[in-house]
């Protein structure tokens, strides 16, 4: 059994080249938006806009400038499926299309998925969406096919600055912690790891080094599992059923003056 594999993305060295997006689209043969007729979003250099069924990598551009533009910085981050150790999408999938692989990654089997879209609502990160060509929900597979062949995923292979690092999770965590320590030593005290900790959904097998709040990068501060609501939601429903049932019994049993 191979050990858990994943991505560690150091956003401080991302230069926003989008090589990862291109490599992902090329390898996975994902179609272009609108048949290739792209439109500009007007949002910085980001015309991909979001992760969805045909965009499994998305480089975010966050411009942080003062009003007079004298001071500022760019934050760039290549977003992808987090391959959560406790995955919301996998939990809710009713067909068993979403599986955990031998690499501890989360993959949607496109030949099983029937496009019910529950996983889209279940994902805490808004990663999954429909692929209009296949009619199924799709997302990053962490290049399961390449990994099976002993190869590195296309995106991390293409990344020219090693912002995207691929490898065994255990090693990636060590590498990431060293980088955080290095940044702290250099004065970048805001650097921290997002999702490396097991407290976040058991740990994200694609975790990040960030230098601002998660919200700044469009990441949820406190992602949770959908199943947290299963028990209380069911109990309230049962209580409702009991109350309605009793009200029905009372209405039909107590009708002394009906025949008047």
């Amino acid at each position: 059994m191979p050990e858990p594999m994943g991505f560690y993305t150091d956003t401080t060295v991302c230069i926003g080249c989008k090589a990862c997006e291109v490599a992902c689209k090329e390898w996975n043969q994902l179609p272009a938006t609108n048949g290739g007729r792209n439109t500009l979003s007007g949002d910085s250099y980001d015309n991909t806009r979001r992760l969805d069924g045909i965009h499994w990598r998305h480089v975010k551009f966050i411009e942080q400038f003062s009003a007079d533009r004298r001071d500022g910085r760019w934050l760039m981050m290549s977003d992808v499926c987090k391959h959560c150790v406790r995955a919301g999408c996998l939990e809710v999938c009713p067909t068993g299309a979403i599986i955990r692989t031998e690499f501890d990654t989360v993959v949607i089997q496109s030949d099983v998925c029937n496009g019910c879209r529950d996983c889209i609502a279940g994902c805490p990160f808004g990663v999954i969406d429909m692929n209009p060509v296949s009619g199924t929900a799709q997302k990053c597979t962490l290049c399961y096919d390449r990994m099976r062949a002993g190869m590195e995923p296309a995106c991390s292979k293409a990344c020219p600055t090693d912002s995207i690092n691929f490898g065994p999770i255990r090693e990636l965590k060590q590498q990431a912690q060293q980088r955080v320590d290095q940044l702290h030593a250099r004065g970048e005290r805001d650097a921290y790891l997002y999702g490396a900790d097991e407290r976040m959904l058991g740990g994200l097998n694609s975790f990040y080094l960030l230098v601002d709040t998660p919200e700044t990068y469009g990441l949820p501060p406190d992602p949770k599992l959908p199943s947290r609501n299963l028990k209380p939601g069911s109990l309230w429903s049962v209580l409702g059923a009991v109350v309605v049932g009793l009200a029905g019994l009372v209405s039909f049993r107590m009708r002394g003056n009906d025949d008047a």
Partner: protein
Amino acid sequence: MPSTFFTEAPHWRWLIILYFFIGGIAGGCYFLAALIDLTGRPADRPLARLGYLIALPAVVVCGIVLIADLGRPERFWHMLLQSATWRPMFKTYSPMSLGAWGLLVFGGFAFLSFLGALADGERRRGFAVLRPPALLGTSVSILGGLAAFFLVSYTGVLLAVTNRPIWSDTTLLGAVFLVSSASTSIALLVLLGSRRVFFISGLRALQRFDVIVLVLELLTLIALVVSLGSLARVWLSAWGALLLFGVVGLGIVLPLVLHRRAPSPLAPAARLAAVLVLVGGFLLRVVIVLSSEAI
């Protein structure tokens, strides 16, 4: 910003709203029919019959609507059987998986009771065993009634067991849908039953039940808004206006007022109240589904 706002909408729109509404009618009418059959008087049996006759076609429509909503409708059976092994596909912690089976099981009971309801006096008398007071019929109605409760409430739990805003920020949607399905089903039975004078005794009981259920619905909706806490501010919008004026005003308060004014369920005001409850029940599902989809 709450974490649920960083998620994507699953594109559940009009077909799903329609399913939530018709599913509520199917389960609710079955529950009412079973309730009337098991506790009512012999004079009420035609009203119960009407409930069974509505439940089966409604649940068939539910199945068709759900299949049509899939990205790959021809693979609908993947919800029930594992496509590679043909073993049953069943996940106790996935409300949609449970719901697929629940719909199938309820459909079975609705079918049996539909047959039972076809027995009418001397005609098709053989089917009468499928309806109370026959022992088999009593068992079918009790088990079918339980399945009906599941069918009308699991949809709300399904919405809660996601990470979407509003839906997963409360745990009360199952109860809200359940109570609303009772009120809309009572309304439909009153509307269709009020054409026949001989339904009057059962209709009076239904009307009394309706008042209790509408008050319950108002209370659960208030509890829903309270349970959302500060998140309820997302309804400070056209959706909130629709909830307040459409669902609560038109669909609950006005029917309650009309009930007070119209002591007889055969009066035009009672029929108007029934129509308003149905409209309110539909709008409730529109608001719940689309106000989250819009975020």
